């Protein structure tokens, strides 16, 4: 952790502040949310690293989708993601958002979350331990450092594709497109 290195702060203050102030929206789908309270309270204390839960997506820059995504919650997930201010990072937690997990055969859950939203990283496992969230945060730091956590840029670039995928599952969406067609990054 390079939070105490003043030189890095002077070189890239914006990047460093995005690294060490990850305020998270936990989208409480499925069983993954069970692992989050120990992380943010006294047992593991994520606030040491600047990771803090927030109540509203406008304050957040980290989006944790903890568990399976049913078609109904996908709508809310998309709206929440689109309300977060850029730059924003999203992490899928558990095996269900990665490839459907144990809900592979379900008629009502989506299997690959990254077809509908850009995901910067995955935490595999069913269930991942709370420590896995810390591992994910340290990986996310590395990605931010190297400008590789560019999910929000991909969302702008490939918005037409993402929107088409969303409409294929959800039918007609009741909100207008977030970015006009052909808008550059």
């Amino acid at each position, binding site marked *: 952790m390079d939070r105490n290195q003043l030189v890095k702060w002077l070189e890239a203050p*914006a990047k460093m502040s995005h690294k060490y*102030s990850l305020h998270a929206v936990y989208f409480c789908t499925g069983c993954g949310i069970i692992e989050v309270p120990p992380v943010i309270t006294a047992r593991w204390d994520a606030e040491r690293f*600047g990771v803090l839960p927030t*109540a509203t997506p406008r304050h957040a820059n980290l989006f944790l989708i903890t568990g399976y995504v049913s078609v109904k919650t996908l709508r809310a997930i998309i709206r929440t993601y689109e309300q977060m201010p850029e730059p924003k990072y999203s992490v899928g937690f558990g095996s269900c958002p990665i490839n459907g997990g144990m809900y592979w055969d379900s008629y009502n859950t989506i299997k690959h979350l990254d077809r509908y939203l850009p995901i910067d990283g995955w935490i595999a496992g069913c269930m991942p331990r709370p420590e896995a969230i810390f591992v994910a945060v340290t990986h996310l730091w590395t990605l931010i450092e190297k400008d590789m956590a560019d999910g929000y840029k991909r969302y702008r670039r490939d918005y037409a594709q993402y929107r088409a995928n969303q409409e294929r599952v959800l039918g007609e969406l009741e909100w207008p497109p977030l970015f006009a067609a052909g808008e550059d990054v």
Partner: protein
Amino acid sequence: MKILWFVISPLAALVVGIIFLGLSRRFMARIQWRYGPPLYQPLIDIMRYFTQKSVSHGAIFDLGVVLSLAGSLVVVLFLPFGGICPLRGSGGLLVILYMMLLAPLGMALAGGEAANPNSSIGISRKFALALGYEVPLLLIVLAVMTRYDSISICEIVAAQRAGLPGIATFPLVLSGFAYLLIMPAVLGLRPFEVVQAPQEISSGPLAELGGRYLALAQIQHALAMFIGISLFVNLMWGGASNPFVFFLKMLVVLAFGLTVNAAFPRLRIEQALRYLWRWPTLIAFVGLVLVVVIGR
């Protein structure tokens, strides 16, 4: 030379307020047996908010956030900070009481323009709570003004420093106790944390603020914390001769507020009003009557 103090005084308040924000997160963490974030974590957060893309909800939204910050900065100019008091000769306590309402008013304008139901609930709670603690606060301030026969806060501080601090003299001890009872409500700490209540109405008036707006709101929150504590130290604890001693006195009051914050759960708004209009108001009223009858 005098104009320089108009710049230094708000900056000092800002630095102290942000230190208070960091300290309060650290203090709460230690009470809960956690390590807690570093002291400069609020600074990191504010830097992040400033560098994020922000969404505006209209002109009133922008102006409301600026109004609340400006209102807090103006109040700071009237409050003596150790020896520093830029607006020494002006209206004093009466102006402070008026100006203290500008900050919630600005937040209400911004939250109303954002048209989020959670913001509206938060705003109505904020004004109900302000109604709750302004009544005892007015009685306390009246008692202090009657006791020292002055409306200038600088003269009140000077009078206390010539003798004993206000809270150590007989009739005013009641007013000081009443102020301690309403202190968490003035600071928005936990038994009265009904306005933001993240678990309940998702940050209330701040729910739609993102990016730069949230940064300004956070700075305003730091200033509000400074103002609430500084008013107590000036009115009741005799201020201080230099800013450092003043800062130490403020730290003691902050520690008291945070201990209450850690120990109590959140009240409902009508429970909060019932409490605020019963015991603190009663004690402050008795204090005022005693000051008028025997105190002077």
